[in-house]
């Protein structure tokens, strides 16, 4: 459907990190699927495969945890509320501008 220009196939990766002992191919495959995994959108057999990789690759486990934490932080980042005076002033300005034309 849509172009997947930016997704590079595993074979194109250079210099494998020595820390990825459980097989770099798995780590990269995991990286592509992480959001779908943490959002619970993957089929159970793929989840099982991922979990067994996580058990064997501590770095991926730490990585996935940090991604989950990132999403949780985004979800909870509050925004200061709009002040009542601004709410009134904005409404007035919008109507003035709308009726001026």
């Amino acid at each position, binding site marked *: 459907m849509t172009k997947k220009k930016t997704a590079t196939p595993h074979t194109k990766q250079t210099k494998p990190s020595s820390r990825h002992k459980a097989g770099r191919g798995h780590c990269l495959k995991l990286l*592509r699927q992480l*959001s779908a995994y943490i959002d619970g959108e993957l089929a159970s057999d793929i989840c099982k495969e991922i979990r067994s990789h996580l058990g064997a690759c501590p770095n991926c486990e730490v990585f996935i945890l940090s*991604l989950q934490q990132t*999403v*949780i*932080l985004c979800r909870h980042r509050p925004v200061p509320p709009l002040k009542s005076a601004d709410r009134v002033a*904005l*409404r007035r300005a*919008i*109507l003035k501008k709308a009726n001026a034309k």
Partner: protein
Amino acid sequence: MATALKNRSQPLPAQGLDEFGTLYRDHVDLVYRYAHRLCGETEAAKDLVQETFLNAYRGLKNFRGDARISTWLYTIASRTCMKMRRKRKGEPEHELSLDEFVPTSEGEFRLQIPTEGLSPEEALENKELRRALDQAINKLPKKYRMVLILCDMEEVSAKEVGTIMSLNERAVKSRLHRARLFVRRELSARGILDENDHKSRSLRS
């Protein structure tokens, strides 16, 4: 119906004004919150709220209720933001590639400021973490920032975000994934150390 069409370019009649009043009253907080997240500061957010409701006012007569009002307003706000930003500065829009998110050193796997054992609210009491998170989101190219804000902060479904941004669901998810990886990386040692390094260099000079 025919009279409504005739009045299209005129100010709203009294009934329309009431409708607008209700729309504004019920949704200004939502639009402001979204605008603040997109702009990262109060004044620009207020400008965006004003332009969004001005466009909504003009389009209100033609809104047929096919979409939820919130989806309609998010769409107007997103388009208005794109236009306003384009006018202000021609920031280059670049694509994020998955390759750039593969960690290359030990410190890049975990978040620099640990949040384990804390509730998200407690974690976000840490000013440095809040600042790093805001900076990371603001650094995202805007088409990724919008998707992240809508999906992960406004908690709009990927399908609805697709409607808002005229994208298919798959494209929304792909952008969301890259945006999350980007923010994660910025919060890891790499992002924060780069920042501290930059700060300490400027303090020394």
